[in-house]
């Protein structure tokens, strides 16, 4: 050991050490005070901000989309419900390489180009921390395969959801419409809070019309998550308010019977309760499966629907435009009576040809040589054109158009469905405004038999018929019967459709027209004779056969087969029953039908049969003959 005690002074060293030690301790205390000051700054001054950030760390707000309201028919038959399904969702910010991830994922779960296109569209619109749906409606097999491979795909998860389902398939596609993914323009106008967590919205039909009722109010969960975003517990839960259940006035059995009666032939049928405007059936054939649209229809399926020559996507009941033909004759006859131009007893001679004074062109009856002298009831029963040519001339086009307007021709019926067509009720004013041409007298003549520029939708015609059946009270057609705030809750009846007071001035006049219409079905020479056989109530009806192409020759082509006639004719039929107290009015339009009475009327009868069956009446045939 090396020691140099001579140079050391223990007492002074000790004193110096004490001084240094206490100086050091003072500095240490100063430093620790400085450290505490920092704690005060964080824990007192900035406390609130850090509390907020700590909560932002651990609490996630998860929106709970509301279950969409269910849709039933008037008897509680389920038309639209929600079924549990699974979809793939991606949180973009947790995916390191999106492209390669998608490529690898596609080997586990098939991804269509439509899926990828939609995904990329939404990816561009959303925040990277928001979950973006990638594939809807996974099969059990796909879920299992993904579960095994999940570890390879951070940020991708299988998420349960409720998928809209239409158990009746294409039977109600044109009534219900369908739901689909919310698109960009819808996103812009929707209340973001109400649609938080919701991916779909009603795109057409009832689904669109009553979107506001069907879509409930979202709930939310405050979820505590750990650093891996794994949810640990629910701190607060506000359950969603489900959308309201809707009961439609439609009767599924009528709908079914009518749809079957068409047997795939393009056309449309509408049944309305004339007393209140409730729509009992709304059929458009052919139809499509709305379930295809729910999870995003594939390009191939959509193209097939678009290019189908029978246009299954066209709602013929609502937007199909057809010349009404002879179906307008009862309304015209009524106009003649109401306007004082005719009495029921006035007769007109039908010779087979009708000529305007000074004109060469002849306007024909359906039967060569005519039927001779007919009064109003026979004219309706046998659909005598000459009677109505003359009546139209006597009435004049302006009065004719004004009168027909009262039945709702030429404007939308006001049904609670979107995108209803208004048809055309021609008048000189209309022709000037749209075609910039003067009105010709011959056009008045053919307006008398529902030809020319005049086009109606089946719904419009049904609305007019219901107005006729209810003696001039026009109830706007209604599909919504009642709503319900949840399973088992009381059904709240929907507000009745607005109805103008009756414009009928003479009830016997209306009865005369109805007599004619009863004759159509029950008279010996009725154009739909035999239709009422075995039916428990008297049916009042009217046939219509409208030409799709104008005739090039004036010759009668009696040798044409029904198939050939069907190619050039549209067959129409309108009827209501019971004739003296109408409960149901039915309109049928068959796009390719030879004659209204033979082709369209049986479809109407099938609907009436379904209706009668429902009222607990025995099936046909009846022993006693129907009255009237």
């Amino acid at each position, binding site marked *: *050991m*090396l*020691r*140099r005690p001579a*140079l*050391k002074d*223990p007492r002074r*060293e*000790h004193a*110096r*050490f*004490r*001084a*240094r*030690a*206490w100086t*050091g*301790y003072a500095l*240490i*205390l100063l*430093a*620790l005070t400085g*450290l*505490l000051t*920092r*704690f*005060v700054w*964080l*824990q*007192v001054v*900035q*406390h609130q*901000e*850090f*509390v907020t*950030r*700590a909560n932002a*760390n*651990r609490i996630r707000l998860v929106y709970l989309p509301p279950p969409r309201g269910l849709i039933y028919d008037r008897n509680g038959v389920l038309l639209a419900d929600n079924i549990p399904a699974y979809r793939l969702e991606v949180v973009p910010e947790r995916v390191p390489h999106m492209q390669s991830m998608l490529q690898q994922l596609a080997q586990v779960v098939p991804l269509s180009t439509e899926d990828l296109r939609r995904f990329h569209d939404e990816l561009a619109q959303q925040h990277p921390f928001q979950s973006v749906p990638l594939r809807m409606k996974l099969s059990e097999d796909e879920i299992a395969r993904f579960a095994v491979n999940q570890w390879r795909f951070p940020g991708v998860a299988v998420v349960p959801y409720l998928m809209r389902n239409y158990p009746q398939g294409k039977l109600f596609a044109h009534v219900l419409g369908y739901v689909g993914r919310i698109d960009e323009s819808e996103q812009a106008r929707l209340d973001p809070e109400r649609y938080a967590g919701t991916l779909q919205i009603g795109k057409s039909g009832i689904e669109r019309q009553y979107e506001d009722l069907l879509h409930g109010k979202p709930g939310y969960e405050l979820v*505590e*998550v*750990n*650093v*891996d975003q794994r949810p*640990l517990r629910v701190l607060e839960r506000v359950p969603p308010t489900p959308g309201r259940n809707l009961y439609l006035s439609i009767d599924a059995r009528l709908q079914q019977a009518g749809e079957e009666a068409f047997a795939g032939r393009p056309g449309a049928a509408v049944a309305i309760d004339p007393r209140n405007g409730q729509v009992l059936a709304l059929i458009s054939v052919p139809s499509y499966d709305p379930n295809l649209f729910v999870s995003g229809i594939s390009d191939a399926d959509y193209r097939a629907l678009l290019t189908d020559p029978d246009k299954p996507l066209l709602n013929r009941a609502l937007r199909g435009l057809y010349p009404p033909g002879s179906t307008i004759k009862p309304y015209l006859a009524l106009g003649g009576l109401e306007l004082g131009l005719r009495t029921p007893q006035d007769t007109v001679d039908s010779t087979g040809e009708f000529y305007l004074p000074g004109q060469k062109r002849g306007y024909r009856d359906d039967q060569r040589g005519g039927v001779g002298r007919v009064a109003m009831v026979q004219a309706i029963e046998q659909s005598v054109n000459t009677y109505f040519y003359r009546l139209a001339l006597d009435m004049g086009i302006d009065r004719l158009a004004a009168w027909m307007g009262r039945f709702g021709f030429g404007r939308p019926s006001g049904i609670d469905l979107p995108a209803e067509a208004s048809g055309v009720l021609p008048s000189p004013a209309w022709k000037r405004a749209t075609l910039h041409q003067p009105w010709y007298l011959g056009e008045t003549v053919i307006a008398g038999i529902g030809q020319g520029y005049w086009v109606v939708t089946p719904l419009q015609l049904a609305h007019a018929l219901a107005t006729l059946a209810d003696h001039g009270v026009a109830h706007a057609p209604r599909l919504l019967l009642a709503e319900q705030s949840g399973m088992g809750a009381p059904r709240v009846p929907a507000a009745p459709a607005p109805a103008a007071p009756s414009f009928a001035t003479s009830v016997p006049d209306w009865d005369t027209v109805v007599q004619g219409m009863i004759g159509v079905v029950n008279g010996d020479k009725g154009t739909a004779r035999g239709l009422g056989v075995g039916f428990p109530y008297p049916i009042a009806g009217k046939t219509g056969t409208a030409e799709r192409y104008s005739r090039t020759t004036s010759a009668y082509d009696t040798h044409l087969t029904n198939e050939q006639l069907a190619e050039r004719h549209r067959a129409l039929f309108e009827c209501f029953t019971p004739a003296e107290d109408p409960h149901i009015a039915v309109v049928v339009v068959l796009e390719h039908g030879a004659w209204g009475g033979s082709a369209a009327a049986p479809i109407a009868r099938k609907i009436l049969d379904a209706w009668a069956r429902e009222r607990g009446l025995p099936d046909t045939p009846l022993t006693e003959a129907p009255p009237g």
Partner: protein
Amino acid sequence: MNDTAARLRHALLRLIVRPRLDLPLALALLLLAGVGLLTLTSAADLEVHVIVAQATRFVLGALLLLAVSRVPPVRLRSLTPWLYAISTLLLVVVAVLGEGRGAHRWLNLGLLRFQPSELLKLTMPMMVAWFLAQRPLPPRWRDMAVVGLLIAVPAALIAWQPDLGTALLVAAAGVFALFLSGLSWWRIGVLLGALAGALPVAWHYMHQYQRDRVLTFLHPESDPLGTGWHIIQSEIAVGSGGWFGKGWHQGTQSRLEFLPEHTTDFIFAVFAEEFGLIGVILLVALYAFIIGRCLWIAANARDTYSRLLGGALAMSFFVYVMVNGGMITGILPVVGVPLPLVSYGGTSAVSLLTGFGVLMSIHAHRKLIDSAG
């Protein structure tokens, strides 16, 4: 044979029944260990094996403390150069053969796996005290240069491992001995100036992850998901604790694992989150008391060696608290310095308690007449 056994039993009995301990310091350490275990229990989310492992370390440390407290400072002093040489040599061995995650710190001795750098925390102040105790004080440039070399070689070896935190602590222990030896203030000024000038050089030799830590310390928000994450989450934990804290085991930042390293380097943030500013003040006061008591013991020591050694150990204890507290509150860069007797793991609890054993020994042998002979 019988005689030896009796003496051994006697020695053991004396160790337990009549330990030569400074009671205030011992109680303060006991309290600190209790607080440490309590905080760790929460931070480790009630995982029993963690708590048992830590308690085992405390028991081992306490036994070492008791054992070392029986060794007179004179004996320590005579062993000092050897201990220093051996521990430095072990550092070299570690540099060549060591193992560990990304850093060569550990030495695997079969059953025992330990970091030789922990030894330096004790042998460094011992060596500096040993050297200065035999030099005229206050030291001159020549002695300072020797001390500088004694500090620099092991510190550089540790920093090269790389373990900046331990290197800092080891160097600090040596520097404090120098400071306590009465180094004149103007020399201190010159040294600090030189240190400031050497910073860019140090930067040059730093590892990238160390540079990143310094950079993120300066701008934590620049990399909120990378290295800045530690600082941000720690500040959130501390700040959200408020005056009274969220309560034991109620800290969301640690329980939900937003706070990284919440049982080890960042356990102070857990403490601050759960016990609030009140708890922090009490804990810092406890540390301040322990440091003060240790300095008091050193000031009353018998000789210069004991004084310098005890004082240096006391002041390096402060460095732990300051660097760790500064780190978790974002006023100092992230360096791996544990909160003494609270942070989980490592050999630091054992080496710290051994250090306190030295202080207990100094206290026990403060009288000029050494009873242990």
